[in-house]
């Protein structure tokens, strides 16, 4: 067997690692390990000169293994594997030690952090010596896409794909397209009509021969893997024929299932449900769309109060900001003033979040239009009560105003509660169907929050819009079209590369006990009746390793996660 020659590279990551970890000391110490041919530190290993250094060392020093101690492998494993490929050696002869996310960023003590970083790098060096050359697999990419949800996100993704000439199955649970946006009148800050934004897209979707629209339908099951999914779509619960199910072959899935509004009834102190003219933003939106702003008693209200952050940014309900309510509240102030010019609008906010393009101008415009802004404290709340007979308004709101430091009482005929967004109650079911994760609030988790915001941890499943987190229309549309672009890129390549990591059975060791057969969640382990041996179908295997750990004869090998490799790592971290 050829001699193992390892190159070890310890990244400073600017000062991100070097500030806490003594990279030079680690290098000096590990260079003495057997099989280590080169050990260096560098400012940024992931930079072009950093990668070129590795490529050059591989060529000059005949390296056949590389260890990079730097950030998380989830960040740059692929980058460095490519560098190995460039230098002409198998990309799987590489191992990363995570000394940033799991060391320098979480430990302050230089001595212990350096010791830990050295142990992790040593483990990687011992592990990489046992690495084997692996070849990636290629599978066909089915050009059809399943889009879940017919809101603005789903419509945007479907159009982008269909107008490029690729089939789309657009599945919508209700009997109409448009989602939550269809419930909105005008949009902030440009005051475009939501109806105009939607009708054009809905018409294009309906006319496009590449879109198969499936209303009142929902996903029942999804199997397969990236490029080769089989989806079963049937009638959404309650309404529709339960026997009518469609089996669809798709290459990708875009989840655009949106949000639901926070239930204002959960907040007791605003009197929602008790005081007739305390309404939610969506109820008020309906009045705006109908052009009929009236109290329950049929009067035209004179005093309006808008309360921000109902259910959002609160200890008791949702901790997060719903992002769109501040601008929507300002939009209400505009719409109220133009519909009822003699009215008075008070805006009760915690902080005004005007972060988007044109939002600050919109805020200034609202201030100039004589909206009365009153700031209330976080974790406090304005108190709404019925006014005494004879008062000029129907309700009175007492607010502990933060900027003046005074308790102020304002009149109100109509109170609008700006309810935030929350994950839909069925979002967990969808997550399980397509195998993606949710965070503590129920939002879907992206593959990387900054660098890979539309992909998920399951290859071929994308997320767009408010199912991933609260966001406004431009962000939603951008995400939906980004997801479509990612899919189009794969369709253009026609083939998709699949990691060479899967399980394989050593027929000589297999006793044919079949313990592994029933363990596999993907039915990838088959039994060869003739040979009386189990066999792994590599196309179906997703490399979890459940069968490997269960095999009593140690006959199943998890490629790239073999027992020997992991044992070497255990020895390395403990030495």
């Amino acid at each position, binding site marked *: 067997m050829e001699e193992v020659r390892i190159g070890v590279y310890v990244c400073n990551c600017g000062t991100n690692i070097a500030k806490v970890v003594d990279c030079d000391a680690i290098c000096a110490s590990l260079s003495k390990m057997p099989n280590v041919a080169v050990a260096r530190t560098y400012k940024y290993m992931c930079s072009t000169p950093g990668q070129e250094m590795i490529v050059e060392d591989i060529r000059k020093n005949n390296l056949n293994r590389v260890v990079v101690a730097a950030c998380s492998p989830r960040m740059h494993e692929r980058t460095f594997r490519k560098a190995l490929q460039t230098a002409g050696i198998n990309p799987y002869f590489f191992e990363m030690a995570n000394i940033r996310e799991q060391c320098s960023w979480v430990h302050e003590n230089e001595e*212990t952090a350096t010791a*830990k970083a050295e142990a992790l790098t040593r483990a990687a060096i011992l592990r990489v010596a046992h690495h084997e050359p692996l070849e990636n697999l290629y599978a066909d990419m089915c050009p059809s896409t399943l889009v879940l949800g017919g809101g603005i996100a789903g419509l945007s993704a479907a159009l982008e794909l269909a107008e490029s000439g690729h089939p789309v199955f657009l599945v919508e649970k209700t009997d109409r397209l448009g989602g939550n946006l269809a419930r909105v009148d005008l949009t902030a800050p440009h005051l475009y009509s939501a109806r105009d934004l939607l009708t054009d897209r809905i018409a294009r979707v309906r006319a496009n021969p590449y879109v198969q629209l499936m209303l009142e339908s929902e996903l029942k099951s999804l199997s397969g893997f990236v490029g080769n999914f089989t989806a079963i779509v049937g009638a959404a619960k309650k309404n529709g024929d339960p026997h009518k199910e469609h089996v669809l072959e798709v290459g990708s899935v875009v989840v655009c299932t949106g949000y639901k509004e926070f239930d204002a009834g959960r907040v007791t102190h605003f009197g929602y449900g008790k005081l007739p003219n305390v309404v939610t933003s969506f109820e008020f939106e309906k009045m705006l769309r109908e052009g009929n702003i009236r109290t329950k008693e049929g009067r035209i209200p004179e005093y309006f109060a808008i309360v921000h952050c109902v259910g959002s940014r609160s200890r008791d309900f949702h901790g997060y900001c719903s992002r769109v309510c501040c601008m929507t509240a300002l939009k209400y102030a505009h719409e109220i003033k133009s519909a009822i010019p003699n009215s008075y609008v008070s805006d009760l906010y915690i902080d005004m979040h005007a972060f988007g393009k044109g939002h600050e101008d919109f805020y200034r415009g609202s201030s100039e239009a004589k909206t009365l802004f009153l700031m209330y404290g976080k974790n406090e709340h304005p108190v709404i009560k019925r006014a005494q007979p004879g008062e000029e308004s129907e309700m009175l709101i007492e607010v502990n105003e933060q900027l003046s430091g005074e308790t102020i009482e304002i009149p109100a005929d109509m109170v609008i509660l700006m309810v935030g967004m929350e994950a839909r109650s069925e979002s967990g079911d969808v997550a399980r169907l397509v195998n993606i994760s949710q965070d503590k609030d129920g939002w879907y988790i992206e593959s990387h929050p900054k660098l890979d915001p539309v992909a998920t941890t399951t290859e071929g499943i994308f997320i767009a819009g408010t199912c991933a987190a609260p966001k406004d229309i431009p962000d939603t549309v951008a995400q939906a079209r980004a997801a479509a672009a990612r899919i189009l890129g794969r369709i253009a390549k026609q083939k998709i590369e699949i990691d060479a990591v899967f399980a394989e059975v050593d027929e000589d060791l297999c006793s044919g006990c079949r313990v592994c057969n029933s363990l596999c969640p993907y039915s990838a382990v088959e039994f060869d009746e003739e040979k009386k041996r189990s066999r792994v179908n590599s196309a179906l295997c997703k490399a979890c390793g*459940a069968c490997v750990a269960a095999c009593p004869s140690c006959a199943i090998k998890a490629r790239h996660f073999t027992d020997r490799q992991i044992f070497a790592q255990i020895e390395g971290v403990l030495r």
Partner: protein
Amino acid sequence: MSFEPKIVGFLCNWCSYAGADLAGTSRIQYPANVRVIRVMCSARIDPTFVLKALRDGADGVLICGCHPGDCHYTEGNYKALRRYELLKQTLCAFGIEEARVRLEWVSASEGQVFAEVVTDMTEKIRALGPSRFRVEQENASQPVHQEVTK
């Protein structure tokens, strides 16, 4: 010098390893006693990994996987749980204290949870002292005359 526990962590790639990375990006501080080994799924964790870590001188082993119902491979974490329950009985027979081998669910968004688990486990093992295997090993590797001269 005070006793510093050595803990080996086996983390699944999809939830717990991502959660540990998130603790890093969020700069949540925790003790440096845990050394993480990444596996694709907690179901890959062969009980022999745990036994080997203990034999090689680990004072504790932490196994982390996705929350029930949230496994990337549908149900791998349930398999890990079953193996863990069986393994605990074996370890008990060996005289290994229960707190030394721990299974926790950590999702990709729970950086804080990961940091808390590591902090708590480090403290508990620090209180327990070194594992008996480590003590036996260290005694075995010490020259006999040192004992005598004391």
